[in-house]
């Protein structure tokens, strides 16, 4: 009986540890998945699947190594699985290109992290209408149709404004990188 209690308690500790690691890494993993599966809802589904596999294999995780790097392998597997099955409904990138992107994503990891450090400041500099549209699209998760209605614009105009706002952010970030570099 005691042995069983101990086993249950070990399992609980292990689960708590896993949850901590996973929650700490979740946003970073989502960003990683979204390099391949760009829709945030789809990416969350992929990550949910990955979480199940990660927990199943958690006893094999070497805690001396970064959790995120280990978890990314599972996330990539699930993302590819998703593109093969669910992804059929949407236009998507070819599978060999996905491999190339995943590989390059790892190499660029530090650069991407460094770039995004400037995002809050650059977002603060956007004209309010552009910021409001991005907020509706990304934070409130409004559809483009809903945004078009809300802002009384055509669908095409909403897409264009979104893209202009993101380009402005990218240029601002690029400028900051240059001034620091």
């Amino acid at each position, binding site marked *: 009986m005691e042995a069983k209690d101990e086993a249950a308690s070990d399992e609980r500790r292990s689960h708590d540890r896993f949850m901590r690691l996973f*929650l700490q890494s979740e946003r970073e993993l989502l960003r990683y998945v979204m390099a391949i599966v*760009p829709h945030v809802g789809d990416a969350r589904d992929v990550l949910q699947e990955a979480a199940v596999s990660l927990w199943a294999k958690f006893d094999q995780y070497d805690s001396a190594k970064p959790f995120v790097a280990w978890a990314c392998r599972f996330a990539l597997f699930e993302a590819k699985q998703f593109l093969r099955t*669910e992804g059929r409904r949407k236009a998507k990138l070819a599978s060999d290109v996905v491999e190339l*992107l995943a590989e*390059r994503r790892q190499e660029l990891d530090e650069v991407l992290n460094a770039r*995004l450090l400037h995002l809050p400041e650059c977002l*603060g500099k956007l004209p309010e209408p552009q910021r409001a549209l991005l907020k509706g699209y990304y934070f409130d998760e409004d559809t483009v149709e809903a945004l078009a209605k809300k802002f009384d614009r055509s669908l095409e105009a909403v897409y264009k404004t979104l893209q202009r706002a993101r380009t402005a952010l990218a240029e601002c970030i690029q400028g900051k990188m240059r001034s620091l570099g």
Partner: protein
Amino acid sequence: MDPSAEELQSRIAAVLDGRASDDEATQLSQLLRDDPAARDAWLFQADLHARLAVDETLWTTPAPGAQDRNDPDGVAPAAAAFQESSLLQGSWIGRRAAWAWSLAAAGLLAVSAWNLAPRTAPAEEPVARFARLDECRWVASDASVQTGDGLRSGQRVELSSGRAEILFASGAAVTLIGPAIFETLSANSARLVIGQLKAVAQTPASKGFTVQTRTAKLVDIGTEFVATASADGYSRVDVSLGEVDVQLDGVASPQRLFAGDALGVEPGERRVVSRIERGDDTPNFRFPTIEPPSSADAADASAPGRDRPMLQAVFGSLSKHSGPVETLLDGRGQEAKDTPEQSVFFNDEETGMLLLDLKRVMDVRKVNSYSWHGNVFRDRVRATQRFSLYGFRGDEPPPVDGPLLEAGWELIARVDTEEYFRTSPAVRRPAQQASSITAAGGGPVGRYRYLLWHVIPSVEPTTKRINGTLFGEFDVYADPVGDPAAKQGR
């Protein structure tokens, strides 16, 4: 000819925004295949897109350099900059939570706090107040929470451990069970981001008290329930008294649950729900909404010849007292509550897997599993259902002796009626139980030839004794693919 940088950006945006045609995606793939610089452009743009989508603090924290009416001294930009430095290790569910968790994980901090960052601008008047605080540790180390402290609309509570009771102005009472993240939304509503809570809404003003999770909205109809939200998006409600309506996005009518019912909602577009109900403890197997065992479903041994579905135990060992696996396809449950020979169960302490071959690919609409057991020694523990249901549509089932998902199995739903008994006050464990797995919006849960029940033993809560569940019947309601006229099962 290579497109201009601007054109490349807009082609990338079309795929990121999900509005590209197949041809456009193919053209972009070709560009990315041929040009490393285009791949970098994709990755930069996709990462910006991702960060805007997943980092809610971008929208709730004043930007560095921006003038904040509420922060004339400019403290917020400095705080935001500080938070930014820890962002890349942070969790999307709350940076301070993740920060403290990470310290706790390293053994550096007795975890602890609550985060006052509201998702929306808080109203002045509190909509709820802290009542009893039982050994609460908060995620933020500087938290000082006292009984009677007010909570405004949009305020977030991050509880690391212990129990915090929160009284809403409507009279609804929520007991938050740590670890949990929770937000007050109004005098009669709240959001459970992660963790578990118990809600009691017994005053007239609290009728309709609502708890939102990522996958469901739970509306209390004068009752008591326990809500759980897992990190992977799975939500669950267990009703201990009264009634609860569960409203799922995109589904017109709510599902009403009564005392003794539970509903789990899997993440994902199909919105697979598993409903758990207690039976009438008779051989009739009558349940509030789940139909009794059927002999007219797609998983029935009465089907003729080569169409006859086949069930096998493919992992683990059945108990020597168990009946044969075909018992689960005989169209009926057990005749009495302690009839091992009419039941199928694995050895105690063993997980097991039951593989059903439907003999052809079918649109599976509903999967019902029935169990019945009770005697004076094992107080209804062996009625508890704990299993994950997987599916596969190919000709040969993937192996089951390794990780199932990697092998190609799709997880359809998780059922755990044991969870139910964590309600307080404890509800007497039903001896006869049914679980029903369906897609919330109607339509199939998936297209499969094989179904796999990965059965986990139940655990008796006081003695911790581990037991095999006595299943009496599996029913699968499904339509053969490409043959809509030939409906099998209701």
